[in-house]
């Protein structure tokens, strides 16, 4: 029985011959795959996900509940929900900071089923040609490396399977100051994970190349997450 990764790899190679350069993103049961708007496989992936989805549980009550507002509280480090039902307006908190971060981390492991080891090795070989040897060693050892933009003097921490961190020197001297976490997945990504459709090192290469080649575009295309938010991956 072929794995998701093997299916993705074989079909991607087939579709390249048909001029579909991005390959075939692989839906994974239990995860929601989001593709970029012009991806030619959006409809197919949505159909596969609909077929994989479990039926929604029956409602426990007939009383309608309206969600008035939802936001993530920096102080509480939880989602805050304001809801209205027939009895009035109530406030709730959902989850905990630790549970949110753990869920994203564990679900990223689940999304790894879509990645083939040979594909990741190919990406690692490509990265080796793009950075200096000691930088490559840093990446192999820690899953991270630093590079400072000569243009903006922003220092980027490129991380495997995590958003890229942007830092700059403190105006008062001393330590670096964190600006934000830049999250960007070419082609597609799995919601509520740190996983993209491409293998982690291909995502790192995409970030690195965009930063080097068009830094303003990198910032425009990426989602800029506050460092205190669980989506920053800290």
């Amino acid at each position, binding site marked *: 029985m072929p794995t998701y990764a093997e299916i993705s790899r074989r079909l991607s190679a087939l579709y390249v011959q048909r001029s579909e350069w991005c*390959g075939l993103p692989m839906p994974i049961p239990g995860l929601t795959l989001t593709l970029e708007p012009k991806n030619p496989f959006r409809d197919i992936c949505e159909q596969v996900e609909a077929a994989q989805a479990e039926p929604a549980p029956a409602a426990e009550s007939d009383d309608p509940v309206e969600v008035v507002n939802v936001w993530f509280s920096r102080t509480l480090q939880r989602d805050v929900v304001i809801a209205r039902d027939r009895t009035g307006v109530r406030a709730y908190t959902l989850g905990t900071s630790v549970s949110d971060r753990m869920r994203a981390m564990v679900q990223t492991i689940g999304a790894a089923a879509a990645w083939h080891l040979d*594909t990741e090795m*190919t990406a690692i070989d490509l990265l080796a040609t793009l950075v200096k040897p000691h930088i490559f060693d840093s990446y192999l050892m820690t899953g991270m490396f630093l590079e400072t933009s000569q243009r903006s003097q922003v220092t980027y921490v490129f991380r495997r399977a995590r958003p890229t961190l942007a830092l700059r020197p403190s105006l008062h001297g001393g330590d670096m100051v964190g600006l934000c976490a830049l999250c960007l997945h070419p082609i597609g990504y799995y919601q509520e994970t740190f996983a*993209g459709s*491409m293998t982690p090192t291909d995502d790192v290469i995409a970030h690195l*190349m965009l930063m080097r*080649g*068009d830094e303003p*575009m990198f910032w425009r*295309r990426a989602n800029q997450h506050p460092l205190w938010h669980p989506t920053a991956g800290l």
Partner: protein
Amino acid sequence: MSTGTLSVLNVGAGDIQVSFNQHDAEERQRAVRMLKDMQARGYAILVRLDDGTYTRALEIDEAHGAYVIQTPEPAAAAPVAEPPRRGRRRGRTKVPFEQAKAIGVARSAGG
């Protein structure tokens, strides 16, 4: 014999690499076709310059077989820039496919 390369980041197959070999018309034609298609789909084509830096290709000049890039900014110690030449769009330079290494990155889905 100069050979430029284009690597395209791919989901399952790893990066696909094609070469612009001026002595292999079929492969070159395939590579150019890939470039034009990627441009239409919003891919970012990052081109490596002679000094090791990278810049994004603004256009693909199929007729002349070149990437059109923004002219790199001169270094701080460089002399005063010359006046722009007549008949040439200011601020743009062409880099022939055969002389460049490039990497293609697809549009972002978010994150």
